[in-house]
């Protein structure tokens, strides 16, 4: 039956509208979890607040388990889901730049827009910086193109590259999540309390 749009249960023309609705809900959840505060986001790196790690890891694990149950019960064909293509070095270099920006500015691109929506001035500056970055990247694109298009490994997942049973992968991933939460709690307790 699912996924709904590729199988024509919902016509493909609706996907932009659904994307907008999901975007609104996503933005609301980000704001409700306090992610429009750069101090909260930066807390992951300084060890006084691990909400970001917990929220995103929980979201990933819950949706992963839910998807596999739906696949098992036949409501969803997991092989039809979109898998992001891997451009290895593009991803590594981009990840480092994005991570540096994340630590320095205290936002990721999604949360920065969320913070703009509630009028945070640092977020305005941050989004301005994103625009400058986009401009520089576009101007340098001919030079960067070999990295951007190269080192292509296809739409692979961890299960493909490690060759393990997906169910075990989900189980191990959940254990890792729980362990990460416990460790992050221990780290947070050792840190001095910071009010922000």
């Amino acid at each position: 039956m699912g996924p709904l749009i590729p199988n024509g249960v919902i016509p493909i023309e609706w996907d932009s509208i659904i994307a907008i609705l999901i975007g609104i809900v996503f933005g609301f959840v980000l704001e409700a979890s306090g992610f429009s505060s750069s101090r909260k986001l930066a807390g992951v790196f300084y060890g006084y607040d691990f909400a970001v790690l917990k929220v995103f890891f929980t979201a990933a694990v819950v949706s992963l388990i839910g998807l596999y149950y739906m696949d098992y019960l036949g409501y969803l064909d997991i092989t039809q889901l979109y898998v992001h293509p891997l451009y290895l070095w593009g991803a590594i270099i981009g990840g480092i730049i994005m991570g540096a920006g994340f630590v320095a500015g205290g936002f990721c691109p999604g949360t920065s827009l969320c913070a703009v929506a509630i009028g945070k001035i640092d977020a305005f500056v941050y989004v301005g910086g994103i625009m400058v970055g986009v401009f520089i990247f576009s101007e340098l694109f001919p030079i960067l193109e070999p990295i951007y298009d190269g080192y292509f490994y296809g739409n692979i997942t961890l299960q493909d590259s490690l060759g393990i049973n997906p169910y075990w992968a989900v189980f191990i991933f959940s254990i890792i999540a729980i362990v990460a939460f416990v460790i992050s709690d221990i780290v947070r307790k050792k840190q001095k309390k910071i009010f922000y």
Partner: protein
Amino acid sequence: MVKKKIAKVLAFRYKLLAAILILLAGGLVLLPKYQKHEGIKPEELLSNVISPERYITTDQVAHKLINRDPSFILIDVRDEKSYANYSLPNAINIPLKKLLEEDSRSYLNQNQFDVILFSNDHFYADQAWILCNRLGFKNIRVLKGGINNWFKTIINPLKPSENMPAEAFDLYTTRKAASMYFGVVYPEQANVAGSETKIEAPKRVITVQKKKKKPAEGGC
């Protein structure tokens, strides 16, 4: 008092949620695995098999061809040699052994045209039909009797004897006219025309749109 009790329970809430998460994830590992069933259910396949719509007669196909009906495609499931030797006008050759290849699928798995499968008899076409139906392809039919029957009924129709009903004569004239369309020259006609006028069925270009089954573009 009640509040205290609630607080006591709530103190464990994260441990409880973590336990539920582990249980659910472990459940996935422990669930009995079964072979996934691709395609339609056996009951559905059976109902398709016994449906009279499964076959199309040679007369219907001839009618469609003569009227240049754009809504169908003919697929010859015999091997390439037989196809090169003779085939129906504008038929596409997909030998049975290549039926499941990616190129063939774009012709078989689409909603644009009706697909009519044929072979010498209808046995190979039937096998192709079963396979396609099992995979859930729509609008697939089989030419009853295949090319043999095509020759028997359309190209070389049997002249009815005098004691047959009028319908038989009507059918014969229709079939005879059809055979002329497909290039058969009758003696009485040949005398009149003098020169051979072979009417070729106009070549039809069949473009099949690939069924949309691309995964949605994603992004963050």
